[in-house]
């Protein structure tokens, strides 16, 4: 019984959840930063917060790339894209990871936790965990996957590479189709390098996530020390609550999550989640569609990208500045990234396009309604959502 296919499908799905969860964690932190002078920061602070936001978003974008790459891997060995993930906050027992995933606003302890997520695993410990499936870092999980890929050999690769997604559809220049063991291992090595980096040197100059977060931490500490020395207060982020949820439905959020109390904010947060899930469904369809549906794949992929960059980003940032509710005093909310019960789009191109259009229309009206009265970023998000054509 040396067919590791199903073990691999399971582990790859876990990897999906991890990359996806990390991406959302990083996005939440980036969205919480004050990036406009109107948020009450000085121009010097703005230089810093925009730089930190871009650095954290850089890492988040690479986790999304990793997610896309793992989706290709899944398809290559006979699976389909997995876009579910556990709700925030995750129980520490959910994965063997000793650091549970949560959504928390930008700050020193949060950056330090991010550093721990990406810390390279010393070689000795990696070998130790090969016997059981427990993994303590993301890197370990991938190394385990590599071992199983190697064990499985050529019979593993039964999926059609044409159904996978490349850089022509999504803006991930390193996204490759997986055809065989060599390409599978190359893809996984890229993921590991980008996260932990290679031991010793700097990956030919390419900074790993670990190094990027260390740079952010160093810069943040410098600003904190300077502010302390000058006797001024330095609050680079909004006072967002942790692990906000727009829903009391336990599927969407565990009891430890913080239900947003302000009605308007909660509705906006719920709309954010609906758009976010809709975007995932569009992407999921793109990754498993027929080659013949090329035009619609491009349409859906482009729409998903625009949804991310011109709708979810301003909406997520707006939520970070809106009141969380009286029970949280002066705290603000944040984007819940709640994945509710949802089904994939139907595989028929005509049907899925119809459903997508109906959904987009419904979300667009809802957001436009909520946007009346501002803030500006919500109005912008609503305009952009209305402009996306499917």
């Amino acid at each position, binding site marked *: 019984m040396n067919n590791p296919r199903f073990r691999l499908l399971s582990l790859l799905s876990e990897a999906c959840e991890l990359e996806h969860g990390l991406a959302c964690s990083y996005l939440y932190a*980036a969205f919480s930063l004050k*990036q406009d*002078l*109107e948020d009450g920061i*000085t*121009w*010097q602070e*703005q*230089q810093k917060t*925009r*730089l930190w*936001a*871009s650095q954290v*978003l*850089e890492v988040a*974008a690479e986790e999304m790339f990793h997610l896309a790459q793992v989706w290709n891997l899944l398809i290559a060995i006979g699976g389909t894209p997995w876009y579910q993930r556990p709700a925030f906050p995750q129980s520490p027992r959910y994965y063997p990871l000793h650091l549970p995933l949560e959504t928390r606003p930008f700050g020193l302890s949060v950056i330090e936790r991010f550093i721990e997520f990406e810390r390279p695993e010393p070689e000795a410990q990696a070998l130790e965990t090969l016997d059981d499936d427990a993994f303590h870092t993301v890197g370990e999980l991938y190394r385990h996957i590599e071992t199983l890929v190697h064990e499985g050999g050529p019979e593993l690769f039964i999926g059609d590479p044409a159904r996978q997604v490349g850089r022509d559809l999504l*803006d991930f220049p390193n996204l490759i189709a997986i055809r065989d063991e060599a390409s599978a291992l190359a893809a996984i090595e890229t993921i590991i390098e980008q996260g932990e980096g290679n031991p010793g040197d700097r990956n030919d100059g390419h900074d790993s996530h670990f190094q990027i977060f260390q740079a952010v931490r160093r810069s943040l500490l410098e600003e904190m020390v300077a502010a302390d020395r000058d006797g001024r207060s330095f609050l680079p982020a909004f006072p967002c609550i942790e692990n906000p949820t727009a829903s009391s439905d336990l599927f969407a959020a565990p009891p430890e999550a913080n239900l947003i109390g302000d009605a308007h904010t909660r509705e906006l947060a719920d709309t954010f989640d609906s758009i976010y899930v809709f975007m995932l469904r569009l992407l999921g369809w793109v990754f498993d569609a027929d080659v013949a549906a090329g035009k619609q794949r491009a349409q859906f992929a482009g729409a998903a*990208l*625009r949804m991310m*960059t*011109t709708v979810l*980003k*301003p909406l997520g940032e707006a939520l970070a500045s809106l009141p969380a509710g009286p029970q949280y005093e002066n705290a603000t909310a944040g984007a819940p990234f709640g994945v509710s019960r949802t089904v994939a789009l139907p595989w028929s191109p005509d049907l899925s396009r119809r459903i997508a259009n109906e959904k987009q229309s419904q979300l667009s009206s809802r957001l436009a309604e909520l946007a009346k009265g501002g803030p500006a970023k919500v109005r*912008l998000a609503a305009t*952009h959502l209305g402009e996306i054509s499917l």
Partner: protein
Amino acid sequence: MAVDVGQFRRLSQTLTGCTPLSLELADRYLDNLADRPEAARLSELGTRLEGGEDPSTVLADPELKELVRLVLVLWYFGLLDITPAKALGPEQYYSGLFWSVVHAHPPGLSGGYSGYWAYPPEN
């Protein structure tokens, strides 16, 4: 000059077509205008605009047009539009309205994340 910060802000909002404007900046810009001869007619300008007059009719008066130009360039670019133009400081530069009106950002400030320029603007 007899125009207070609140009134100055309101007339600035009408003239620039942008709302809301920062009260703190309005205070500073009012200060910057204090020594300008054109500023003597600020109160009159404010009253006329608050009375519902179409801002473009104000431009028929050359002196008022000069005042309007000063107000516009202050808010849009953070500059005092005299000859040569006078910079007022980085805070004012980065507060310039022009850049967000054209869906961009002041040069020297990141637009948000690496690669944002590949997509249509979010702002």
